[in-house]
């Protein structure tokens, strides 16, 4: 299937639940609400035509101050790049995350890679994933305050790690 066909299928199936649909250079994406995310992803994965069995990537985006952007009422988006190994096509699902409700359902039980990637989005954007088993910072150190990839975080605001000994002892890394 082409990405446009997948998009048509998703929009047909979910109708008004698709907040935005989007095409650029042959790549298509749909934006859905956080509440519908799991349903859409499960559908795409299990449907025989789309069969997106791979979650390739999971990325947060901060649209604070994005120019000429009237129809986007939310600040953050989390983009899920899907790939189907049997059909050899890709598709992108995005979830709208308004600033006053920074919550997205976790999909770590659908794809195990989401576990770490959601931690990364949490670390860098502060979006929390409900149902995640171990939502901790992954790239920045534990003492880091704020979320580095947000547009309102100054790029060279450095935060020292003050308690090296504690960090080097094992207690902090919880063994899963």
């Amino acid at each position: 299937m082409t990405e446009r066909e997948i998009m048509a299928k998703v929009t047909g199936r979910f109708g008004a639940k698709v907040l935005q649909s989007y095409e650029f250079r042959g790549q298509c994406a749909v934006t859905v609400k956080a509440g519908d995310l799991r349903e859409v992803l499960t559908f795409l994965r299990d449907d025989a035509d789309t069969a997106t069995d791979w979650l390739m990537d999971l990325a947060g985006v901060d649209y604070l101050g994005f120019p000429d952007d009237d129809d986007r009422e939310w600040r953050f988006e989390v983009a899920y790049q899907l790939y189907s190994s049997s059909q050899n096509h890709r598709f992108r699902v995005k979830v709208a995350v308004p600033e006053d409700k920074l919550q997205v359902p976790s999909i770590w039980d659908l794809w195990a890679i989401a576990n770490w990637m959601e931690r990364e989005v949490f670390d860098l954007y502060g979006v929390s994933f409900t149902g995640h088993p171990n939502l901790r910072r992954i790239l920045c150190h534990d003492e880091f305050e704020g979320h580095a990839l947000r547009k309102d975080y100054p790029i060279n605001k450095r935060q020292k790690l003050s308690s090296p000994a504690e960090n080097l002892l094992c207690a902090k890394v919880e063994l899963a």
Partner: protein
Amino acid sequence: MSDGTHVRPIPSDLLTLNIGPAHPATHGTLRVQVQLDGETIRNAACEIGYLHRGFEKQCETVYYQFVIPYAERLNYMGPVNNSNAWCYAMEQFLGIEAPARAQALRVITSELGRIIDHAVCIGTNLVDLGALTNFWYMFNYREKVYDLYEELCGARMMVNYPRIGGVSLDAPDDWLEKCLRLVDEMGEAVSEVQALISRNRIFMDRTVGAGTITKELAISHGVTGPCLRAAGIGYDVRKAQPYWGYEKYQFEVPVADGGDTYDRTIVRFQEMYESCKIIRQAIASIPGGPVLASDHLVVLPEKDKVYNTMEGLINHFKLVMHGIQPPKGELYSATEGGNGELGFYIVSDGSAKPWRVRIRPPCFANFSVFPKIIKGKMVSDAIAALGSINIIAGELDR
């Protein structure tokens, strides 16, 4: 004594042990915590982020063309693969295409990059297993590839060779012949190293069955590259969604079925031969013509025009000072890096600086499977498996 009180009970609690962040076997900066029962790993957890250099934030502050050197420092084992991939992503974004000669040069440099990546991966993995010779041997060939890069563009490791819209320089005279000679030489060297270890009793005892990644685990964890192909799934972006004319070249995607450390090593060996094959074909069929696209909004004009014509000078000035301005939009572009699918997710707001650049780092996905595959194994198995997954911290933590 008869009541047995003098016998101290054997401690039954688990011993927690840190491997890393500054441990030689981690080849960089990652930290694995294991809980040991004797020498058996009962539990494991990974801590990453020790080389989080803020790549993604940094990219938001520079022009699109200035991301090229940053991209090269992601996977520093085969640097040029990343910059080629970034330029390809930008070309897709801008809707232009690099000339055929530039694409062939990208194929050649990238495949050389893949060979040196695998060579050092295998070499260092064997060092961890106690076989030092192969490393020196393979590293010599890395130096020879560096020489080729140096001749091509003046730098040996971080070559900064591609440009958005092509490559910066054409290959000098007889470079392609030298490349061909080296590829022949390298093929022999690789088979010598392979002969040393592939049926080696010690090597097999250490690696067969160590750190097995099953198919299901691989799919669920998004494992790509040699690790995936060793697990029995022949997914390779070069075959699945070809770019730079990979569809023209005859090559196999080596697949094994065990998914263990041994298979990963053998798959890497096979891939090196395939890369040699691709390079030979690319050199044999390399077309003539320019190496940069002629789109003036993207590619800098020739120096002759810059110095001698007003339009050329203005064009140069505009591109350097104001950058490339792509349309508003977002795009995900994938290529096959040394360790698997290297993806760039670019969001543009129409200005000269990216709104968001996200890397899909193959290592990140590959490493996330690590705690699961070492559970129940010995510490020495974990070390062997860690080397064969080929974690590059620059890409893992970005």
